[in-house]
């Protein structure tokens, strides 16, 4: 395989700053980017990619090809957590398996964005509707993850029928998970109204209905600043990924293996589907990257509320400290070479 594409991917400011972030932590520098600066950057990125995607979707309109892509995206997001769950159950309990499964069914917007700047650099075109696919892939994984808990943790939940499960005088309560926790309204709210999903969807919508004048006025902010803010944000991602790396070592080799192999498997499935529905090479890469990436934004927030029994440091660390770096450094160029190979 041609390694120059990997090198040319690495030798770009965003990836290099990611390495600088990693290096800072490994060398014990005190470099730090305190909250809410990372929050500001990620809100910006969601705002900008949503708006841009919406605008492009408006220009292209809803063609049959686009409809098929969106459908495929939803299906992948719903199916990935299912087989991931059973693989994870080999070693983990129901709650952690479901949470990690949902994480890998969902997507990472920054991985997507890094792939799109990779394509821009190679002058490969891609459609704005891929952002819509991105937005549509956050929620199904969350819902399927929760369904898995509901089905498989059923017996435990059935025992816990007291809505307010504690004895009145402080004597031993049963540590129960009241059924109320599964109120569907809360689950649906967490999936579709999760802040990140909501902002992305909202920006997409605004991009769709806004006319060219609005688009042009926002262009300096959402367009020209984009690459710089992405680069800066990746510096922070490097810092965080390196810090999370320690957590992961405690998780053992099974989880480390899962964090690398699962994205590769999902990427290959993504490439196969992309070929099947005849996406262009650019769209195929973005779709592949969506399949391969794991969420560290929307899913953790949703899981904390709805599967509090799962350990957030596990699923966040896997997505952030291994899958994310693997995808942006090695995954993107390798997936694209495979695509180029088959698309010719």
């Amino acid at each position, binding site marked *: 395989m041609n390694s120059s594409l990997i090198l040319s991917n690495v030798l770009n400011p965003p990836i290099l700053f990611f390495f600088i972030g990693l290096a800072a932590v490994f060398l014990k520098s005190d470099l730090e980017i305190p*909250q809410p600066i*990372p*929050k500001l950057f*990620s*809100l910006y990125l*969601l705002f900008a990619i949503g708006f841009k995607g919406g605008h492009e979707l408006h220009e292209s309109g809803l063609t049959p090809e686009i409809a098929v892509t969106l459908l495929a995206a939803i299906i992948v997001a719903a199916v990935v957590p299912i087989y991931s769950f059973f693989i994870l159950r080999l070693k983990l309990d129901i709650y952690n398996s479901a949470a990690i499964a949902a994480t890998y069914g969902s997507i990472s917007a920054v991985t997507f964005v890094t792939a799109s700047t990779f394509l821009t650099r190679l002058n490969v075109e891609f459609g704005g509707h891929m952002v819509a696919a991105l937005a549509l892939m956050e929620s199904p994984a969350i819902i399927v993850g929760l369904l898995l808990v509901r089905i498989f943790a059923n017996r435990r939940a059935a025992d816990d029928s007291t809505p*307010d*499960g*504690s004895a*009145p005088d*402080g004597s031993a*309560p049963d*540590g*129960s*998970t*009241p059924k109320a*926790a599964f109120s569907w309204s809360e689950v649906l709210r967490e999936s579709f109204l*999760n*802040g*990140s999903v909501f*902002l992305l969807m909202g920006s997409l919508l605004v991009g769709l209905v806004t006319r060219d004048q609005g688009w042009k006025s926002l262009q300096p902010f959402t367009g020209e600043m984009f690459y710089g803010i992405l680069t800066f944000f990746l510096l922070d991602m490097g*810092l*965080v990924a390196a*810090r*999370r790396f320690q*957590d992961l070592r405690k998780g053992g080799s099974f989880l480390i293996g899962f964090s690398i192999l699962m994205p590769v498997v999902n990427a290959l499935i993504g490439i196969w589907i992309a070929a099947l529905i005849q996406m262009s090479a650019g769209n195929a890469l973005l779709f592949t990257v969506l399949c391969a990436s794991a969420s*560290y*934004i*929307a899913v*953790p*927030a949703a899981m*904390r*509320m709805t599967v*509090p029994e799962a*350990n*957030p*440091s596990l699923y*966040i660390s896997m997505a*952030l400290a291994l899958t994310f770096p693997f995808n942006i450094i090695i995954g993107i160029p390798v997936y694209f070479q495979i695509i180029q190979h088959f698309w010719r």
Partner: protein
Amino acid sequence: MHMVKRLEIIASSREMHKILEPLDEAKLHYSIIRDVIGKSSWGEVSDDSDFASTTLSNIYILSFCTEQQVQPVLERIRPVLNKFGGVCYLSDATEIQSLK
């Protein structure tokens, strides 16, 4: 000057509303410190991966109240803390009466 109870609750910010509800209903006054990090048997809680609107850090709730006010509140907070995690402590303090 009279004796009051000092109620302290530390829990994830995502459960803030669930915990404040009983306090509000009991008409307790309280203060909230946000962006608290920590460590417990559940592991470390930090905010460095709180991207976008995700907030996984803790909050610290402090309420000075009378002994009578606090009991019913404790009963209602306990199941929330049991389910989602979080701790709760009581201690004594003297109110410097401001006599508003």
